[in-house]
């Protein structure tokens, strides 16, 4: 743990050095120094920026909950029922690589320009990622394992509680870890439309278009931190749940 903190500190230092070097090389308003941005970040966080961060965080979290609740059971079903997987796998293979952001116009028309369409778009990205990883994890549960747990008396509900749920939890976390960055990128774009709340709106409309570059960087910093914190939480959870993997496969 100490080593990980040290690594994080080292990474932050290198990041600050690169930022400063870039600012010194460019010498333009669009690239201020870190010490110009940090005080603005702190004061903005005490004001409006905090609300925008909360709004964006809420959207991502809603999307995570929504996508997990739907993708996990579907993934488990596809992984365990071969006939279903044969039918749906080609379809998933076809849709999975499509960047979901291209559906933004369609989603806006169908679901309206409000909150729902933004959350839905992010959830869509997470959905396919979780679906695919949970499906593969469920498919790797050997029939012998299921049979021996059934022989202990487990029916459908106990299998879910003692086998499928603990087996899919690490899969969900892996999927979230690799896709949370993409989700936040898409959130940024989705927040350009018909909202006055969120970091995407803050960065583009409130600051960039008004040439308030220090504030813009405060927004960029907030969005980076949102991604970083989510990633670190998921990564830490994954370590706890996946402890057994480090002990070797059985």
């Amino acid at each position, binding site marked *: 743990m100490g080593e990980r903190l040290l690594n994080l500190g080292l990474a932050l230092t290198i990041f600050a050095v690169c930022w400063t070097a870039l600012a010194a090389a460019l010498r333009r308003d669009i690239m201020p120094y870190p010490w110009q941005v940090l005080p603005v970040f702190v004061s903005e966080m005490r004001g409006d920026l905090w609300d925008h961060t909360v709004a964006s965080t809420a959207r991502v979290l809603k999307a995570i909950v929504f996508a997990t609740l739907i993708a996990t059971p579907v993934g488990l079903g596809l992984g365990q029922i071969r006939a279903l997987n044969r039918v749906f796998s080609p379809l998933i293979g076809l849709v999975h690589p499509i960047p979901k952001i291209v559906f933004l116009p369609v989603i806006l028309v169908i679901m309206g320009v409000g909150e729902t369409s933004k959350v839905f778009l992010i959830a869509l990205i997470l959905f396919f990622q979780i679906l695919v990883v949970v499906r593969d994890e469920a498919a790797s549960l050997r029939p012998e394992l299921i049979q021996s747990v059934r022989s202990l*008396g487990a029916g459908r509900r106990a299998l879910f509680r003692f086998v499928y749920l603990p087996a899919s939890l690490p899969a969900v976390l892996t999927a979230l870890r690799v896709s949370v960055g993409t989700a936040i990128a898409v959130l940024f774009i989705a927040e350009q439309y018909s909202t006055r709340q969120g970091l995407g709106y803050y960065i583009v409309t409130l600051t960039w278009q008004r040439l308030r570059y220090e504030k813009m960087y405060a927004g960029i910093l907030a969005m980076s931190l949102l991604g970083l914190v989510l990633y670190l939480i998921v990564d830490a959870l994954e370590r706890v749940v996946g402890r057994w993997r480090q002990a070797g496969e059985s």
Partner: protein
Amino acid sequence: MITIENLTFRYGPRATPVFLGFSWHVAPGEAWSIIGPSGCGKTTLLMLIAGLRRATSGTIRVGNTIITRPRPETGLILQDFGLLPWATVWDNVALGLRVRRFYGPDGKHAPRGQPPPSRKEARRMVEEWLRRLNIYEQRDKFPGAISGGQRQRTAIARTLALQPDLLLMDEPFSSLDAPTREDLQNLILQLRAEIGLTSVIVTHAIEEAAILGRKILVLGQPPNTAPLVVENPGAGAPGYRSTVDFLDKCTELRTLMGLAH
């Protein structure tokens, strides 16, 4: 304990039946081995008794139950230990007791009329079985980090913690090295003498069948229509594996399996 009447089983409507009008009886307290060449249906028979497969026709009765689903008082141990890879040895041994508490004594998933053990009681039982099978020191390790013999001990502890009256084993020791296998065979003999449960072990190893089975069911190429039974009263006696009787019995089985081909 087990009564099979007129059993027919086939894997598909056009497949050769593995069993055709097959009847077989196991009395309480008996120790059986089932042996035969691969593809003879020995594992299938065990899965049918365990309630993990359904007979095409005929009835299988275990105790007072006609088997249509796993019976809570039957214990099953598989070759591929079937442990949860993400759970520690302790949690794996506790799994069956947790499943029982999860359902309560519904008669379907857990024995009726016998309240499931409380948490405290379950902890005591898990600890007792871990110590009895000599894996207490491994209790916090994951299955991937212990030896094959310890994994199979974990699987045995998990099954016996549920106090079964019938123990079914499918090739339980075939992936283990010779000394570990002999060690676990002795453990099974010892536990069987202590608890007095009925046991059926499926194996492809002639020596193992003769060591563990006081009666040996020899299956041949499908369809199996009638049981071929070899009496082996010496099994379980100390030092049986180095007697002339044992070697004779192995020769007899070998001949029978040659004929069965």
